């Protein structure tokens, strides 16, 4: 009895039952439809998104009648004209774009050595500690984390209290551009490390040993071997960090205190403060366009293969 069990374990029997069930509801002659079936959930989601986008596109072409608070019946490009001419939106757009660029560069600079040590360390304890430190912040939502920074960096916060101990007057650390960027970097770091780690794992360690035996010291091995081979990971991580920062809402809202709005905050204001859905939709579409152009630019510069999409470039 025992021998029979181990020869044909319970998990196999469960799999058999599942396969029989699958064969019943989806007979083999439907086999050619299986790829489509697997794509269905994603296609449904994308379809909903496209529908939503269509709706937003429609609204963006109507203006708000401030006397009735209804959208105009006629189509007009007035919202686009406002978005491109009013200096407020230019400031917000420039702030978001520059901010996301700075955040990307800083995050990658910090994430690369972290990921490198995590991948290359010979001590399992170090690797575990680094992983835990990486994942702990993941369990804390972005908004809660931003409030955490309010507590730490506020005028009566821990940092200023510590400065008070050495008789330094409180410094205003919050509600400025750098506070927002700091919060964003801290939020993006785990994403960047998680995207860099597989790219670094894919670089065989003996390439570095080979470079050493061929006369390259640590710095030159890094520059000539590790960095070029890690490029796909760097591009992928950079792309994720950049688009997430560009579209971020919580950090500018909470750590910027209303004075450091990014595009998403401006969209929020249009929808929920001034109730101008038309202008809000316009800004949203422009954000989508800017993001898509950035991704397109990166793909043309480095190739889609850098994200391990499609075949590797020959």
């Amino acid at each position, binding site marked *: 009895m025992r021998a029979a069990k181990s020869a044909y374990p319970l998990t196999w029997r469960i799999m058999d039952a599942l396969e029989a069930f699958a064969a019943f509801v989806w007979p083999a002659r439907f086999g050619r439809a299986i790829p489509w079936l697997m794509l269905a959930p994603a296609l449904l989601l994308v379809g909903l998104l496209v529908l939503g986008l269509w709706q937003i596109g429609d609204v963006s072409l109507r203006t708000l009648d401030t006397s009735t608070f209804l959208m105009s019946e006629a189509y007009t490009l007035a919202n686009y004209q406002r978005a491109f001419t009013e200096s407020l939106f230019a400031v917000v757009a420039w702030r978001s774009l520059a901010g996301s660029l700075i955040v990307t560069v800083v995050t990658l600079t910090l994430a690369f050595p972290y990921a490198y040590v995590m991948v290359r360390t010979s001590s399992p304890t170090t690797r575990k500690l680094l992983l835990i430190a990486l994942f702990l912040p993941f369990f804390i939502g972005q908004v809660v984390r931003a409030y955490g920074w309010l507590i730490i960096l506020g005028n009566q916060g821990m940092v200023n209290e510590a400065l008070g101990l050495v008789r330094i007057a409180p410094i205003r650390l919050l509600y400025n551009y750098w506070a927002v960027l700091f919060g964003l970097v801290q939020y993006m770091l785990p994403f960047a490390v998680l995207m860099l780690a597989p790219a670094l794992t894919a670089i*065989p360690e*003996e*390439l570095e*040993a*080979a*470079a*050493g*035996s*061929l*006369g*390259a*010291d640590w710095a*030159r091995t890094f520059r*000539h*071997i590790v960095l*070029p*081979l890690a490029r796909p990971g760097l591009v992928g991580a950079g792309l994720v960090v950049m688009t997430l920062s560009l579209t971020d809402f919580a950090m500018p809202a909470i750590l910027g205190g209303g004075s450091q709005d990014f595009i998403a905050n401006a969209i929020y204001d249009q929808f929920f403060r001034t109730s101008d859905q038309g202008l809000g939709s316009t800004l949203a579409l422009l954000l989508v366009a800017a993001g898509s152009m950035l991704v397109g630019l990166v793909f043309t510069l480095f190739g889609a293969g850098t994200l391990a999409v499609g075949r590797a470039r*020959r």
Partner: protein
Amino acid sequence: MPAALKGSAIKPKLEGPTVAVSVKSVNMVYDGVHAVRSASFDLETGKFLTILGPSGSGKTTLLRLIAGSQRPTSGEIFINGAAVSAVPPHKRSIGMVFQKLALFPHMTAAENVAFPLKMRRSDARAIPARVERYLDMVRLGGYGTRRVHELSGGQQQRVAIARALVFEPDLLLLDEPLAALDRKLREEMQLEFRRIQRELGVTTINVTHDQREALVVSDEIIVMDRGEIQQKARPSETYRSPSNAFVANFIGVTNFLDAPDGERRAIRAEKIRIAPTRHGLVGADTIVEGIVADAIFEGERVVYEVRVASLGDSLLRVFDHDPSAHSQLEPGSAVYLGWTAGDVLEFKP
């Protein structure tokens, strides 16, 4: 004189033998396990040495200690007379061909070969000609612009060799680079290694578990087992007079004959003659009777396994290199085995 301007690929012959590598009572202990135990040997300049042993014998560890990627627990290694334990790998003048080649995938063949020259700050104007010369030497002239993945396995081997030699290192180390190749290509590359090594006269240490490769390519063979050097000798000597039972068993096919006095005696499979009758074994000093247990046709020879009752029912392996002399003996048939006393190897227990 800068390395880039050194004369032809063929180094001038030095007068008298000089010692290129000297390993003195080197020990390597990992977590209480002796990976290498009191290893000592000298290697003359220009010689091709193979360190041969089964996996876990410490041969790769010994190579890494010479390469400098690991430091010995005790003992010292000298390269051209200088102690190197404190010298990091990138400052040793050692060319290394790695087990998985470790070619740089983001570079062309020529860029791979140029890499060590660039890292050693050779004269940039001299690099292209020199890279071309070494690619020619490994018979890859014209392949310089190919990327690594566009080359076949054998071509990649050649790039790895050119890259390890282009900066004219004092020492070439081969860390089982042929292990992954199919047999035909492996045998071709063995001869290629031999040719290049002779052409350049570079002192070479090769690590392998392939006894045939060791016999074919080497001037000298070190056999290692369980971290210890068992024998260091020329290939023919290693084969003809193995210093102990391990070496005899590891190189070639050897039958151990039970001996009552505790001294182990052995005979090579090719030294045993086989015949269906006693008359076929004229001149043999010892003749035993046996039953064929298995007969394996290998083309140029037939391998017999013969059960011999008078030797404690042990199975003896016999190579019959002239299968046409008599028809193949079928399993189950009674045969006679014979050998001469001079071919019996004897080992102290």
